[in-house]
């Protein structure tokens, strides 16, 4: 069984008001080092009977079709396990 991790974030060109609110909260707590915050979503997906490239393909497909909205979001897929 493979485990896929999918990270979904707003595209760089898209303003992220939630990330900005978190950023401002961190600054108000005194974390002056924090230069930027982008908020996103994280999915862990167990893929039965799949590994390697086929597992990656399925994870990529569900990320594109369902987990992310390509109009506003980008995504990154990691797959581990055999």
């Amino acid at each position, binding site marked *: 069984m493979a485990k896929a991790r999918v990270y979904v974030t707003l595209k760089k060109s*898209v303003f992220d*008001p*939630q990330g900005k*609110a978190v950023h401002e909260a961190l600054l108000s707590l005194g974390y002056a080092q924090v230069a930027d915050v982008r908020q996103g979503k994280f999915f862990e997906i167990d893929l039965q009977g799949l590994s390697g490239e086929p597992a990656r393909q399925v994870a990529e497909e569900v990320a594109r079709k369902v987990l992310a*909205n390509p*109009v*506003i979001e980008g995504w990154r897929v990691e797959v581990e396990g055999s």
Partner: protein
Amino acid sequence: MKVGVVVFPGSNCDHDTYHVFKHVCGQQATFIWHKDTDLQGADAIVLPGGFSYGDYLRTGAIARFSPVMQSVAAFAREGGPVLGVCNGFQILQEAGLLPGAMLRNARVKFLSIPVHIRVERDDTIATAGLAVGTVLTMPIAHGEGNFYAEPDEVKRLEDEGRVVFRYTTREGALTDEANVNGSAHAIAGVCNRERNVVGLMPHPERAAEPELGSAGGRQILEAMVRAMAVVAR
């Protein structure tokens, strides 16, 4: 004329929509459960507001996979009038029937307030017969209504005359303050290329009777009734 109001788990404007079409506009109305694929011979379809599937994943993202959406897409392809209000608009975007996507409101807050929207087009199923420039007052109630599309796409929508409503002042002026959720080009509603699918964030069904503070929304629903009659003919 018969209006089909689609009911998803989490829809909460379905009964208001049904009420207005039936008792205010004097049309037939019927509920269509999201797992059904039979549109019951409806002359127009409304996807009402609410929080379908609790807005899990993204607003409208799960509802678009409901069985009824295949039938709604086919109905739209054949020219049938389809109106999406608020969450219904978001579902139509997720389904690819309308362009763009909704971001969190620019100031992050959920907004439940009356707004003024200006009619930009008189050639859609939701605005035929209204004068361009008419300002209608009705409530919004959303956390994600900040219309976004890539700048090229927004330009294309403008060039094709597909911006149907914009947030303005009561007098119809564009101001940053009037654009309450920070939408690109103050867009409150858009249509597809064929102009038979329209989505808007404000709630016409909540402002269709003077007793409720404004009857501005009724004009949109009455326009839709006229459009149904034309298509049905």
